[in-house]
């Protein structure tokens, strides 16, 4: 008798016969339903719904869930064991999904069904706890059946994990994207309208080229593309300058460089745009100074292309730096030393050897900057002016006066096509080449120092940039203490009090500040989603690095895909997909958590893959031959060695959940407002003081969180090996 089958059978039956089948109106964690349970038609479990409430279409689910009882006594090698599990799981999943899509809040969802079966006279809502458990049971019946057939060495845990990840990715990445595609070829009343699709797709506001011939603005697609190319090229050049200074010069403040580049990661992207306004806007510090000193009339030049470019450059240069520093460090010093002993001077060595070796890294950095710029929502929102880009247009197509769902879907498809092409190009041309790693063999040589003119060039670009970044951050940190930026520079705590005041009321403390609500929500959502992201990401990484199976490439593509999907696209996909049954979760906190988990999953996957590739596979195998199953092995051997990757995944997913804006802005609701969308709302009302005060608090909170997580998870205990790693880091300087 297989314990796992018994377990999932029990889970399935609890879901079917005990817990409410349909989603509870007032949220996932609300237990008011216990009141009318189990007789009330809204809260009854599926079994009662089917028998007592005339929802007969739920009864076949029970049948599928009953089937595995028959094989409990059989052995794993018995062909019936696998066959029954496969059939019960496969049929159960397919049927439960089918009935969920076929019957919605208006009864039959498809006319064909209505005409075949007649009017239903009943309806159903989104699925709830019960359905989730039953789905889980069916899924794991299916995977257990596949494992019993001998897939992946018959490993139940691994097959189950693969099945789980596939199901989640299908539900929360592919399903929303498919909904966008469907929506794009429909008019706003959900009728099939392919002609309209083509009209919208090739319309002048997207592809117009008027800016070349007349003083008009070009189509949004060209605007976005142009901006992305400028930002990609700019961040790559700047990142290279920083990377060269950090690895190949005797620059003293290298540590400071590193800190400076970590800061933007914990900064909500549009905060930089905000600071840019405070400096260069009409009443910005620099503008005021220029007016005072040189009588230059302040203007709105910063709004539009220059402003967005500046803000994105500041925000994304660190990403290019992080990519390039790995590449620049990864080039074996022996290559350069070889060139020098062959009588090449340092300049020729750099041009003929070092630079070509960096080429994959440069292309990678460019593409990342390109994708980030296309996907960026916050900065264009704050600084866009008349310069329209895709991500903003999508947003206004949905929330603006036009409320044109299908136009939003078409724009989303254009944006998705751009980012996916870039993503594809990156994978196709560069593949894994850019993961230059330091091999086990000691490269004892030292990197050569930069040739003189290059050094001057690098310092000349990077240091002013670093200074500008520093000024930006000072603005953010001090901006919140200024009465009214640009007009009245008196010191005040007004903005902080407005946002974060706490008063004592009759029942203890009252969080009376305006920001508390969104602040606590943000912390809660980020704290819930971080471990989930890390878990899903690391599990996926484990599957990708350690297992071989048919279709692994497709699996990898699917799990990394959300990396290339801009947040606005995901946001709109979630609205379209999850606003109606069977998965009806818009307006809840759950949708925010899910959104973060699947948007940030690739970060966890990458961290996991990088760390796991460094752990010798023979460690896992040793554990397996010593009688530990794969789950035990994962828990006792792999995870403890993965601690740094766990920290990285936790930190990144926490921070990204707190700083994200693009997808979030579609998904927030009155009950679940997030800090970023709250701040953006303030900015739109020109309440810069509170916005900047709140932003600086967020940055501090994230810094604390990073330090806390670092301490909590701790360092990996490897004795000498750890010491050597630190030694390595030290010697590359």
């Amino acid at each position, binding site marked *: 008798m297989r314990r796992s089958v018994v377990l999932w059978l029990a889970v399935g039956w609890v879901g079917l016969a005990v817990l409410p089948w349909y989603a509870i109106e007032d949220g996932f964690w609300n237990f008011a339903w216990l009141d009318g349970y189990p007789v009330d038609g809204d809260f009854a479990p599926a079994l009662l719904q089917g028998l007592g409430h005339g929802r007969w279409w739920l009864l076949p689910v029970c049948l599928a869930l009953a089937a595995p009882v028959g094989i409990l006594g059989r052995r794993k*090698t018995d062909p019936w064991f696998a066959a029954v599990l496969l059939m019960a799981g496969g049929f159960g999943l397919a049927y439960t999904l089918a009935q969920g899509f076929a019957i919605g809040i208006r009864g039959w969802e498809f006319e064909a069904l209505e005409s075949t079966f007649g009017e239903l006279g009943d309806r159903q809502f989104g699925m709830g706890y019960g359905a989730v458990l039953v789905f889980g049971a069916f899924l794991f019946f299916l995977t257990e059946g596949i494992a019993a057939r001998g897939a992946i060495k*018959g490993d139940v845990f691994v097959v189950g994990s693969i099945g789980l990840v596939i199901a989640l990715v299908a539900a929360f990445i592919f399903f929303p994207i498919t909904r966008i595609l469907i929506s794009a070829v429909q008019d706003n009343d959900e009728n099939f309208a392919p002609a309209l699709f083509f009209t919208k797709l090739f319309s002048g506001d997207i592809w117009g080229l008027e800016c070349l011939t007349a003083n008009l603005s070009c189509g949004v697609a060209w605007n976005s593309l142009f901006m992305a190319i400028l930002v990609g090229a700019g961040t790559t050049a700047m990142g290279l300058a920083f990377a060269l200074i950090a690895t190949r010069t005797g620059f003293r403040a290298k540590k400071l460089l590193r800190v400076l580049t970590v800061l933007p990661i914990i900064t909500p992207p549009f905060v930089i745009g905000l600071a840019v306004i405070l400096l260069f806007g009409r009443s910005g510090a620099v503008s005021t100074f220029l007016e005072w000193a040189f009588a230059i009339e302040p203007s709105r030049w910063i709004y539009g292309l220059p402003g967005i470019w500046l803000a994105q450059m500041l925000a994304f240069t660190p990403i290019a730096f992080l990519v390039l520093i790995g590449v620049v460090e990864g080039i074996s010093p022996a290559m350069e030393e070889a060139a020098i002993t062959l009588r090449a001077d340092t300049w020729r060595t750099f041009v003929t050897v070092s630079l070509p070796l960096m080429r994959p890294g440069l292309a990678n950095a460019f593409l990342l900057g390109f994708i980030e710029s296309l996907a960026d929502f916050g900065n264009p929102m704050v600084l866009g002016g008349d310069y329209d880009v895709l991500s903003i247009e999508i947003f206004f197509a949905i929330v603006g006066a036009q409320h044109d769902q299908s136009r939003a879907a078409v724009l989303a498809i254009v944006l998705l096509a751009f980012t996916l092409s870039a993503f594809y190009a990156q994978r196709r041309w560069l593949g894994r080449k850019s993961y230059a790693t330091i091999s086990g063999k000691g490269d004892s040589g030292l990197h050569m120092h930069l040739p003189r003119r290059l050094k001057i060039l690098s310092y000349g670009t990077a240091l002013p940039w670093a200074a500008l970044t520093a000024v930006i951050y000072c603005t953010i940190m001090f901006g919140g203490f200024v009465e009214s930026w640009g007009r009245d520079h008196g010191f005040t705590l007004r903005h902080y009090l407005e946002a974060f005041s706490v008063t004592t009321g009759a029942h203890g403390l009252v969080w009376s500040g305006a920001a508390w609500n969104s602040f606590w929500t943000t912390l809660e959502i980020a704290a819930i989603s971080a471990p989930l992201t890390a878990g899903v990401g690391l599990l996926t990484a484990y599957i990708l690095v350690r297992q071989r199976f048919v279709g692994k490439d497709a699996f990898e593509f699917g799990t990394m895909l959300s990396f290339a999907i801009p947040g606005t696209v995901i946001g709109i996909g979630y609205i379209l997909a999850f606003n109606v049954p069977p998965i009806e979760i818009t307006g809840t906190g759950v949708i925010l958590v899910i959104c973060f988990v699947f948007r940030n999953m690739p970060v966890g996957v990458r961290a996991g893959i990088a760390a796991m590739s460094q752990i010798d596979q023979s460690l896992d195998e*040793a554990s*397996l*031959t*010593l009688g*530990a199953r794969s789950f035990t092995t994962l828990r006792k051997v792999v995870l403890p060695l993965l601690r740094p990757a766990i920290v990285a995944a936790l930190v990144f997913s926490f921070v990204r959940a707190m700083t994200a804006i693009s997808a979030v802005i579609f998904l927030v609701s009155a009950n679940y407002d997030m800090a970023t969308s709250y701040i953006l709302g303030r900015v739109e009302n020109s309440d810069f003081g509170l916005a900047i005060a709140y932003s600086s608090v967020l940055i501090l909170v994230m810094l604390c969180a990073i330090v806390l997580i670092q301490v909590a998870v701790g360092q990996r205990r*490897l004795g000498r090996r750890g010491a050597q790693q630190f030694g390595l880091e030290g010697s590359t300087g």
Partner: protein
Amino acid sequence: MMAGSTAASVRFQDVVKAFGEVVAVRDLSFTIEPGSLVTLLGPSGCGKTTTLRLIAGLEMSTSGKILIGEREVTKLPASERDVSMVFQSYALFPHMTVLENVAYGLSVSGMPKAEAHAKAEQQLALVGLKGFGARLPSELSGGQQQRVAVARALILEPQVLLFDEPLSNLDAKLRRHVRQEICELQQSLGLTTVYVTHDQEEALAVSDRIIVMRNAEIAQTGTPHELYEEPADLFVADFIGDANVVTGEIKALDGALAVVDIGGVERRLPHRGLPPGEVDVAIRPEAIHLSRERVDNSLSGTVSKATYLGSHLEYSVETPLGELFVIDHRVDGFAPPGTTVSVVMADRGVTLVESG
């Protein structure tokens, strides 16, 4: 620890392992007797490590049957087979102490910690590492790590013990020492042991039997003596020890012997079932003696290269049969290049093989 009581045989029946298009192991069949030490020997990429991993359950065969003892294990995962393995890299868990490493197999099978640790202490003492339990693996020398890996593998008293190139990370001097230790341990415990190596000297030294593999198939199976003296083909002859391969001709058969003409020299050698006609002759480098005097029934040659190696001399000699490689242990009789010599073949170390 009960000597020999747990040892079991290992049997492969037509086992195939393919990775996509690439066949790593083709129709492999062999039996390993209980309590014997068998080496899988071959050049890299021949399928020997895959074979070992098939026994361990770290790879699943594409077809065929694998039996350990009387039990079929073909579809059992590694964690359910009674087999332990010592890895090439030792695969000691770097985040556990030596004691925790050794006790790992017992703890994951549910033994209480105190008991598992007590047993692990005993096991460590057995491999001569008493008192090292609290250290981390990284604080041990390579040889000590190797012993920890062996102790960890032995603690489960497996039916079969597997070694994947266990000596390859040790320096040359230590290798001989550890090799002996492994042999002694294996004999005293009477364990069925399968050992993978690409080093023929190591294989000859430790094995009861050797399975020589080439291109995913078995080239020859036999005792070290059989393989060295009677290689089945040129590949084995050349892989086990060096061999000069020259062409000869079987003139006639005479009972078990054949009259062979090797470059004009006539010899009587076991014919090993070969028919009259052209034949390859494998001549061991130490089976050739060089003489400065004229000797009957010998080839004449000229030394083209001579190398002094302390314990012996190595020569290249130009002969009508081609260039021969010769090892001469009479170090004082150094013959400089250009010397004309008679090339005499010894009675042993000259073998007829089927021309391939």
